């Protein structure tokens, strides 16, 4: 999915590969078109674009033009691209919008769930607290949030920037059903998503991941891009 002349958040995208795969390929597009997918950590756009290409919703050649002036794929997801349900990019915002969508589905008495992928750094945002509370108050059981817990945000390790180890307790105390799983294990994700789908409350899944997974030189660091000279031959042969 990677081309070499862009400013993309590769590390944040790679931590979310299996999460996006499990949601989009096993739980949404293939079986129920009434579901919504919201990439609240919009900087992981490349992994969403890659998935939408595999699903045949975006022409494959567009991936090479990501962020290009004449391309359709922006640095962060925008709704004019097929398969992007909510424009995102400003952290916390798209999750908050997703709460409104989940409410709309309930108000119309329709089937359908809203799947949201957030980052762990994103949890710092005040509007996450606001939206989390409202979703619990409205008991939006059709809302499933997966937090990509890759332990890093822009400036470093999440625990150094602002501690987050207590977050599962917070979500639970507010009224969400809380699940944990291995965010790189499709079977574990699949099983946990099924549990969340059967929940009678809004659900949040804390998915443990490794930032930059698969590119050893940047794994578990805040570095978004590896040394391109080292990686290029590996990717070209992939």
């Amino acid at each position: 999915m990677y081309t070499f002349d862009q400013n993309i958040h590769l590390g944040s995208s790679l931590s979310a590969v299996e999460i996006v795969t499990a949601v989009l390929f096993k739980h949404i597009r293939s079986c129920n078109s009434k579901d919504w997918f919201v990439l609240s950590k919009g900087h992981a756009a490349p992994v969403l674009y890659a998935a939408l290409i595999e699903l045949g919703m975006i022409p494959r050649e567009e991936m090479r033009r990501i962020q290009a002036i004449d391309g359709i794929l922006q640095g962060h997801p925008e709704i004019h691209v097929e398969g992007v349900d909510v424009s995102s990019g400003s952290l916390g915002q798209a999750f908050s919008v997703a709460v409104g969508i989940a409410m709309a589905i309930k108000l119309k008495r329709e089937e359908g769930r809203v799947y949201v992928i957030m980052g762990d750094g994103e949890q710092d945002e005040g509007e996450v607290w606001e939206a989390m509370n409202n979703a619990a108050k409205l008991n939006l059981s059709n809302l499933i949030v997966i937090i990509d817990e890759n332990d890093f945000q822009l400036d470093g390790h999440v625990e150094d920037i602002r501690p987050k180890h207590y977050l599962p307790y917070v979500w639970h105390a507010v009224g969400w059903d809380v699940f944990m799983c291995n965010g790189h294990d499709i079977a574990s994700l699949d099983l946990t998503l099924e549990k969340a789908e059967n929940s009678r409350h809004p659900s949040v899944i804390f998915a443990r991941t490794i930032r930059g997974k698969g590119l050893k030189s940047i794994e578990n660091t805040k570095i978004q891009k590896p040394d391109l000279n080292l990686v290029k031959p590996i990717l070209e042969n992939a």
Partner: protein
Amino acid sequence: MRETLGKMLLSLGEQDESLVLVTADVGDSTRAMYFREKFTSRYFNVGISEQHMVNFAAGLARAGFKPVVICFSMFLMRAWEQIRNSVCRMDLNVKFIATHSGLSDFADGSSHQALEDIALMRVIPGMKIFVPADSFEIERSLSNLLIENRGPLFYRIGRDFNEIITKDCYGEFELGKALVLEEGDDITLIGAGSILKNVLEACNDLRKLGIKASVLDMSSIKPIDENTIERFARRTGLIMTVEEHSIYGGLGSAVAEVIIKKYPVPMRIVGMNGFGRSARSYQELLEYFKLDKKSIVNYAIELLKNAKH
């Protein structure tokens, strides 16, 4: 104004089942409670969470509803980024009714007085701005703007000023069309919102001094009626705007942008140049900040004198 609005929203809720109301713990203060009592399931109080209020409305709109967000204008500004990034960037059908704007919340003081809101909204691509002068203009515009009009819109009203100053002679409502309240050849006074009452009174006093002023109700600030502004610039050769808003980026700036493009004439922007403050009455506050009729008369005379030199 709030009473009229509350009852109108109730009536619009009956007309259109997709209309939903979203507020942030100011349902009673904004008279949204009339709607709440009738349409409980379509009324959402998200608590004191303005950022989420805007996003929640964006989500409802994305899934097909017509949300009306009703909130004190000042606190809606806290969610400027959500208005820009969630609502306008996706061109969603969310209407914002911003209450207690300008100096109308006279007692609460500067923390509550939105004097920069028009400027903040005007710069966002796709956002439309409407500022009704009185209850009659609310009745005339609301159904069109909330139900028929598509896309984001900022509807700015005061706290409770209620005097009718527009007349029932303007034909069908059209966004982007100014109302001509008075006609005269010496100077054009342009206002929007309840301050127009003072502008009209100033116009009467000027007439007594032999100065004939035109008065335009520029309730539609974006889109703005460029043709009418140009016509009156040509006719009177002088333009003065009056607003309960900062002199930077508001109605005056919007008119000036038209004037410099279409027909440059001497112009004065009358408004606020700083924060507001508390007072015991609205009128007292307007006098303090020189937005009363006497001050407007003096500004007009000054502009006329300067233009002659």
